[in-house]
């Protein structure tokens, strides 16, 4: 955990670069809103399971009801968001991080 003075310089140097500011902005502007969105979407599901049972119990096709479809949609949204983030990180974050690593000589 010890850090030599010259390493500190490397970190401060990198942090001053515009690419780093851009990387940070791209990362945070993706993960913060998406986190809020999926937490709200999940809590909506839990709240409806507690307080809107009539709605959740409505049958849609055969014995498949709204509650089951809503639950399965949570799976779909989780898979979808994970895939979307992977695509985003691969194209928008990784190249910038890599360039910063190369420029820092590490």
């Amino acid at each position, binding site marked *: *955990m010890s*850090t030599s003075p010259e*390493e*500190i310089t*490397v*970190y*401060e140097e*990198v*942090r001053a670069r515009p690419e*780093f500011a851009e*990387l*940070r902005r791209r*990362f945070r502007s*993706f*993960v913060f809103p*998406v*986190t809020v969105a*999926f*937490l709200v979407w*999940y*809590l909506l*599901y*839990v*709240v409806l*399971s*507690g*307080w809107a*049972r009539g709605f*959740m*119990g409505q*049958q849609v*096709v*055969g*014995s*498949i*009801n709204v*509650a*089951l479809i809503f*639950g399965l949609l*949570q*799976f779909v949204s*989780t*898979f979808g*968001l*994970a*895939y979307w*983030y*992977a695509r985003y*990180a691969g194209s928008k974050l*990784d190249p910038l*991080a890599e360039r*910063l*690593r190369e420029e*820092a000589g*590490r």
Partner: protein
Amino acid sequence: MSHETLAISLFLLFVGLTLILTVRASRQTKDATDFYAGGRSFSAAQNGLAIGGDYMSAASFLGIAGIIALSGYDGFLYSIGFLVAWLVALLLVAELMRNSGKFTMADVLAFRMSPQPVRTAAGISTITVSIFYLLAQMVGAGALVALLFGLTGEAAKALTIVGVGILMIVYVVVGGMKGTTWVQIVKAVLLMGGAALITLLVLGKYGFNLSSLLSEAAQQSGKGDAFLEPGLKYGTEAQGLAGKLDLISLGLALVLGTAGLPHILIRFYTVPTARDARKSVLWGIGIIGVFYLLTLVLGFGAAALVGSKEIAESNAAGNTAAPLLAEKIGELIFGDVGGTILLAFIAAVAFATILAVVAGLTLASSSSVAHDLYAHVIRKGQATEKEEVRVAKISAFVIGAVSIVLGIFAQKLNVAFLVALAFAVAASGNLPAILYSLFWKKFNTAGAVSAIYGGLGSAVLLVVFSPVVSGKVGPDGKSLSLFPEGVDFHWFPLENPGLVSIPLGFLFGYLGTVLSKEYRADKYTEMEVRSLTGIGAEKATPH
């Protein structure tokens, strides 16, 4: 051959295979990075499988299938919380943690703080969460052997717990992270294979028509359409507002707890780069998600084919639903022999499941004792790697022995709440500290220490004074709490503390931070750059 003999043979086969892999791993385990982090040389796919193997506990497999078989839809609520939680780990934690940490959760928390108080707090929290979780699995193993093999004697249960305990110690001490990871990979493949096979057979029985499976399940459950809707187990109308708030509280702990579980967090260190950590979580999400979809079919399939009444008679919590279903569907399709084989296979898989999870927990807690408490607090960073690893191995023995003793002692207690409590503690203490550490510039030692102790303390205290510990009585007048009937000192109305303790954890972390003047700009710069770019991150060991 009886299913008992067959199950034990299959299980011994699993033990034999994993022991061979463990011994092989031990030959490749040379330094501390190998022992704690598997040399950081696992591929994303391997680590993804191991994440699944570490995460899908007996509570997930037997527990959720059982809840669905007895109470229908409500078991699904559990699965969804357990799955969505992985988005927190993916987006906010996995990559940043891989880049800034080394061996334990505390590495990230102590990065820019005063190491001793923060590592002490993180170590205590790691051990608490892991022991809660371990205890639930150990008691589960004892109960499982009784259910599956009809061995109801105390001696048989105790012997099972001792056996499971010894095996987990061997995996960790001999194989370190490499051995443990291989156990988890093999288990994940077996569990997915077993669950997929039973699911296919069940769906095939209903002509791959989910709707007719569901209506049959609703009918056989004796509860009708309500069986397919939320509300039979959590937040029932009879429990009123407290019950519904409890549902929210449980949901919060599940979705926020995963990214604070130490045995899950250390898995991110086993791959070469942050990008691999991300990819392994993607693999993990795929595997875990599919698994929970399979348990949905297993649970409803058990209700439809075995019947809720028969399952409840076998085990009041429904833990035998999946094995009973395996036996039934095997009989229906392949005759008696098929039933025996499938039951034996699923029983063996259930034991493999428990073993892989307890090994992961033992590794996480003994790593924290050695790396955080011994090397950094007691020896103040002066311990050599060799000494650290030796202490880790000794700790694995001690933690294993303690959990064996506690497991035998707790055999008769109702400890099912411990897994949910472990998630609540992780969400209340660890998660606020981790997120503040990674994202909040001003966060400092006082903040980290207050978040961990405040969150951990409030979660545990609220549970002590909740109905799970005392004062909950069933319709037959018998106690449903940890304490026997007649003892009642509960005043907190919810069974899950998360709704109160998680915001408290974040609040404590905030107050601790703003009330202290400490702030190290240079270390924050280092952490921010390192976590986002990987500059200065720990490298994989070349082999």
